């Protein structure tokens, strides 16, 4: 491992290889005793699992089609969407309009709700049959439940929660980049000798392509034999009653410990409303009991991708910042000029939020009023 820029090879070595890159005199080498397999050549095409909920496509599927299209174009291979469910009408066409060349559908009553046994059986069978080179799933609760089960059954590698995907030109390998250590480091992972190369991809990072109704593609039904595939039984389903939908918000005003209580958050809510946006928070206000956990952004909260994110009284720890990487513009208001949030912001205002925010509300309202006249 690398500590303070120095390579340390000790008992805790995970053979991550970071030391090899670092050594100036090539004194360190990694003996990876790689088992050569030429079987990888048989595998071709880029697959994405199109997650559905209540027979509707989840947004993450369209994002996967966006990045999948880019990868397939580089490799000059097909982009294939996989649909599993009990009623899939119209979904394959939608996937094609967003970039798929082909869509495989498995329709079965046992696939109505996500159940890891049945979904693993269906997806594994299709992969064994068709031999894709790359399989991508959303890093959603269900995607992160399904992918490891499938990868272990196929005995292949799986890279978790990727935020970057690319093709290594010399080898054709998928370069899978992901945060680890709570977002403190980034790692690029490859699966050189096993196929398919599997990855889960963090939602809200990849961009979906706009629908193009003129695109054409192939829709195929796979005859999956229903069987005793289920490993678990779903007894009931209960909505979490989300009051907020931060993932879809265009403008977010977020408050941290510096908001100093529910009244401070009320002030920020007012700014959010003025801007036509939504309120969010760091973990501190949730821990203080000022607001429900649904509003939390970060590693253990929501990952957001608004056009504008205004962080008020948030120090900007890494656990918070990993949630806002996808934001277009980040504004930070903090009275401590050394707060790390400023390094992650486009515009930083060093000052007291209780003085600045009320003025912002007044001035923005004034502009909005002028526009209406």
């Amino acid at each position, binding site marked *: 491992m690398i500590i303070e820029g120095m390579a340390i090879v000790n008992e805790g070595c995970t053979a991550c290889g970071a030391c090899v890159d670092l050594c100036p005199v090539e004194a360190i080498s990694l003996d990876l005793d790689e088992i050569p397999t030429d079987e990888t050549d048989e595998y071709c095409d880029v697959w994405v699992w199109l997650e559905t909920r209540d027979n509707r496509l989840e947004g993450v599927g369209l994002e996967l089609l966006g990045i999948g299209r880019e990868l397939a174009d580089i490799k000059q291979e097909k982009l294939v969407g996989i649909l599993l469910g009990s009623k899939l009408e119209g979904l394959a066409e939608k996937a094609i309009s967003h970039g798929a060349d082909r869509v495989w559908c498995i329709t079965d009553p046992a696939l109505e709700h996500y159940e890891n046994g049945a979904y693993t059986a269906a997806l594994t069978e299709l992969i064994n049959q068709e031999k894709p080179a790359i399989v991508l799933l959303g890093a959603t609760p269900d995607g992160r439940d399904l992918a490891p089960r499938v990868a272990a059954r196929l005995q292949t590698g799986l890279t978790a929660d990727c935020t970057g995907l690319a093709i290594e030109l010399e080898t054709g390998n998928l370069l899978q980049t992901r945060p680890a250590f709570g977002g403190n*480091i980034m790692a690029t992972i490859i699966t050189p000798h096993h196929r398919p190369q599997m990855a889960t991809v963090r939602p809200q990072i990849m961009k979906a392509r706009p629908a193009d109704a003129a695109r054409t593609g192939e829709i195929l039904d796979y005859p999956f034999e229903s069987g005793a595939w289920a490993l678990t039984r779903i007894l009931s389903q209960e909505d979490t009653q989300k009051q907020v939908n931060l993932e879809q918000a265009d403008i977010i005003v977020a408050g941290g410990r510096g908001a100093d209580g529910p009244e401070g958050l009320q002030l920020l809510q007012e700014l959010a409303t003025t801007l036509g946006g939504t309120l969010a928070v760091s973990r501190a206000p949730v821990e203080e009991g000022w607001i429900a956990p649904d509003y939390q952004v970060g590693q253990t909260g929501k990952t957001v991708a608004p056009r504008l994110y205004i962080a008020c009284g948030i120090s900007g720890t890494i*656990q918070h910042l990993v949630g806002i990487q996808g934001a277009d513009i980040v504004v930070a208001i903090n009275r401590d000029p050394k707060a790390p949030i400023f390094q*992650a912001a486009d515009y930083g205002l060093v000052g007291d939020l209780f003085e600045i925010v009320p003025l912002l509300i007044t001035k923005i309202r004034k502009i909005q009023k002028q526009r209406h006249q």
Partner: protein
Amino acid sequence: MRWIVCIKQVPDTTEIRIDSRTNNLVREGIASIMNPYDCHALEAALQLRDQHGGQVTVVTMGPSQAEECLRDALAMGADEAVLLSDPAFRGADTLATSYTLAAAIRRLAPVQLIFCGKQAIDGDTAQVGPELAEWLGLPHIAGVEYLVVKANNITARREAESEYYLVEANLPALVTISRTMNEPRLPSVWGRLRANRTPITVWTGEDLDIDPNRIGLAGSPTRVKRIFYPQHQRQTQIRQGNAEQLSNWLVKTLAEERLL
């Protein structure tokens, strides 16, 4: 009957800071701890043992220093501890890790229920639990925050994207535990004393029925090709001044960015 808890020793990543000068991780003096999620998994197992009987066995794969987190688990009340330690286990990705854990758990059979943390705070993959269940051919329920155990089955609540599922599975099974499930107990002084007296079982590859091509680096399909530090790609403009000046500047900027 055994309740198995898989625990991992991790660096306390919340203490890790980036040195803004060198842009490197500052890891000096960072303590090694039991993965926080695993404390919740252990607490869940301890409660079930107290309710239903049996014994709690904690298992970790790691270097010899990982014994520390086994001692912590014993101090919290675990009955026995197994350390899987062998230079050949090094460099394992999640597939090889779960394969090795599966071989150890087979040796500990019969087991009732296997507990993992939902994820480890260093590797952050949340893959070892479901992969372990697959190697053992058992059902799994991931991200559990409520659990009831009956004679032959469990009922658990798992949080999905926008709903909760109440899910049932036959025993034996595997669950991965979310941090909202419970409040882990603190080790008592008596527990610490007992932990120091309890022998720890150490197994190497020789003690397990395993294929040497499936463990450690050799058994790992994934390779870490490169590690780097996240770059904040934003060109920060910072302003100081009074509230009037600052708010004027921001309103003007937002208007220019067409955000008003």
